[in-house]
């Protein structure tokens, strides 16, 4: 292992032999990975390789998919997140998620962001809440665009705006771990830069996992990278190593743009 590896930091999440079946189809085959605290881990891999699936395992969103079966163990701070006496709700509050397809609620922009803080009781009063909403929107680089229309429905936003709204919504809860499934896919370079900056900033205090198709983005924002292929975790390690010096042939091919 490389000395600059983030794994010498505290490990937040450990996954061991995680498998996922959708009905009879196996989508993940024995994934084992450690995700360090206060660092950004990037999942890369061709479309359909299981990145989102694994991400959904981490905050147990797969529970909500009928027919999905998860095997293996995932621990957050040493605690098995699939143990029966774990509180899923608390888990999801601690592990926030930004979905691949933006899914704003059919409520106002304000309420979209305020929803999480409200249910978790994070704001003492209205002005607290206003502040949370504004600062979250600002961090997601959306505030300027929507400040005049906070009471309009979130579903009336453009694709990229919706994506940023979902990011704002997720960080408004102040999760310890943030899972982002292609958070910048619908964003222009500047907006992307804002989000990347946000990620960088969040990294100071939180654990972040990001799925991305952009090697550049992975290289820019992440400290560790994991490469998935056909449901297998092919290689993982410090981002620099992966991009400059991949051990595995497949990883190399993917990074070089030879397999998809």
């Amino acid at each position, binding site marked *: 292992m490389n000395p600059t590896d983030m794994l010498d930091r505290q490990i937040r999440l450990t996954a061991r032999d995680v498998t996922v079946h959708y009905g009879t189809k196996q989508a993940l085959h024995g994934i084992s990975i450690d995700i360090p605290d206060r660092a950004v881990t990037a999942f890369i891999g061709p479309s359909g390789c299981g990145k989102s699936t694994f991400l959904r395992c981490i905050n147990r969103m797969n529970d909500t998919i009928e027919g999905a079966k998860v095997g293996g163990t995932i621990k957050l701070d040493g605690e098995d997140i699939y143990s029966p006496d774990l509180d899923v709700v608390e*888990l*999801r509050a601690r592990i926030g998620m930004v979905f691949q397809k933006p*899914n*704003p*609620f*059919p409520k106002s922009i304000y309420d979209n962001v305020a*929803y999480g803080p409200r*249910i978790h009781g994070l704001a003492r009063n209205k002005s607290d809440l206003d502040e949370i909403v504004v600062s979250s929107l600002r961090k997601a680089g959306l505030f300027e665009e929507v400040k005049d229309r906070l009471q309009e429905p979130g579903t009336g936003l453009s694709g990229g705006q919706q994506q940023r709204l979902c990011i704002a919504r997720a960080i408004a809860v102040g999760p310890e771990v943030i899972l982002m499934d292609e958070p910048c896919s619908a964003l222009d370079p500047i907006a992307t830069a804002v989000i990347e900056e946000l990620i960088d900033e969040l990294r100071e205090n939180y654990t972040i996992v990001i799925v991305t198709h952009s090697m550049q983005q992975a290289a820019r924002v992440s400290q560790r990278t994991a490469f998935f292929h056909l449901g297998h975790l092919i290689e993982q390690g410090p981002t620099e190593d992966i991009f400059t010096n991949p051990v595995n042939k497949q990883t190399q091919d993917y990074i070089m743009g030879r397999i998809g």
Partner: protein
Amino acid sequence: MNALIVAGVLLVLLGVSYQTGWSKSRNLATANGVKVHSRPQYHGSYSAIWTMIPALVILLLWAWFGGGIARDYAVSQIPQDTLLALDQAGLNNALNRINALASGYGVAGDVAPWEQAAGSAVRSFNFLTFAGMLVLAVVAGGAGLVYARSRITARLRARNTVERVISLLLLACSGVAILTTVGIVASLVTEAFRFFTFINPIDFFFGTVWAPNNAGGANHGQYGLLPLLTGTLMITAIAMLVAVPVGLMAAIYLSQYAPRGFRAVVKPFIEILAGIPTIVFGFFALVTVGPFLRDFGNAIGLNINATSALTAGIVMGIMIIPFVSSLSDDILNQVPRSLRDGAYGLGATQSETIRNVLLPAALPGIVGAFLLAVSRAVGETMIVVLAAGNSPILRGNPFEPVSTITVSIVNQLTGDTDFTGPQSLVGFALGLTLFVVTLCLNIFALYIVRRFREQYE
């Protein structure tokens, strides 16, 4: 018989025309590689439409005016001197006799020779006009077909035409609902007005005593609406108090919590409640629920009558549970899963997700389900007859017997009452009143729903 012949002819026309359009379109497509705007099915339907409409128009005209023409003809067959001697009722009677003779249907009393002659003349007239009309319809249809066929080209927007016709058909279907309303109002209104010639509308709408007198004579009794109206509202309110929480919670549980298998079994079982004849519920209420409530009331020191608004309301509430539960369940099930995921992903509990995200999103449909349930409650009769005590007295206590508008409608219309007197005519007035009252309630509901809905979407 005539109807069967007409239907058969129409079917044949339909088949022929569709086939014609279809094959012409096919030929267009294969002959010259041009792009045909619409698919052969649409061309087929297009020519079918062009064929059926003229034919149907002819048939409808015949149905509409044929009667009048036949009548005029029949009148013309009555000898002049006889005709002059007849008054309106006599003429009608004579025509009825002639028509009866013409349709081979005997008449009472002796048949005058001119009646016999007129009868057979009308008979052959009827036959000829029927045959003529049929031929005319076929010709008109054929002309339509020829025209349609000549119009079928690659550029013809047959699909648009067909779809316009489809949407007109759909419109016609919603027209059925309108026609029903018109029919209901029409079938109520004249008799209701007859009622108001007996009873002062003010006494009816603002009267507080309901005591029809059937004994005959000038004293018709009192027809105050208010006791019935309050009874209706009270029972409906109680029924909704039972059905809405139970139904909605059941829907939520079934759609969000219950395993699939459980849901598949339980939902149909609950739906059975909607199909049990209401008289069964009525006796259940009268014999089981009422005494139970009375004893229960005694136990906790409340004076509950065995037959009361409460009994009827509760049992009615049970009956309409499936209207709330099954429809809401379907609608909740239809909310896109991404919304649910969004809420879960933020750490919302299941109940929070349901209350804050799913219910608002499904609100319009759920309100529809509530309205349906209310409507059933308002319109229900049998349960109230048996369980509410049939006591049309103005009082506000749900533990006392009441009566409702619907019950009175049934009682007055189907009793031994004089069907020309206010005792029975009041049924129509009540029906009309209930219609107007629920109309107002519905307008109000629509208004509320609109205001409420605008927050979302």
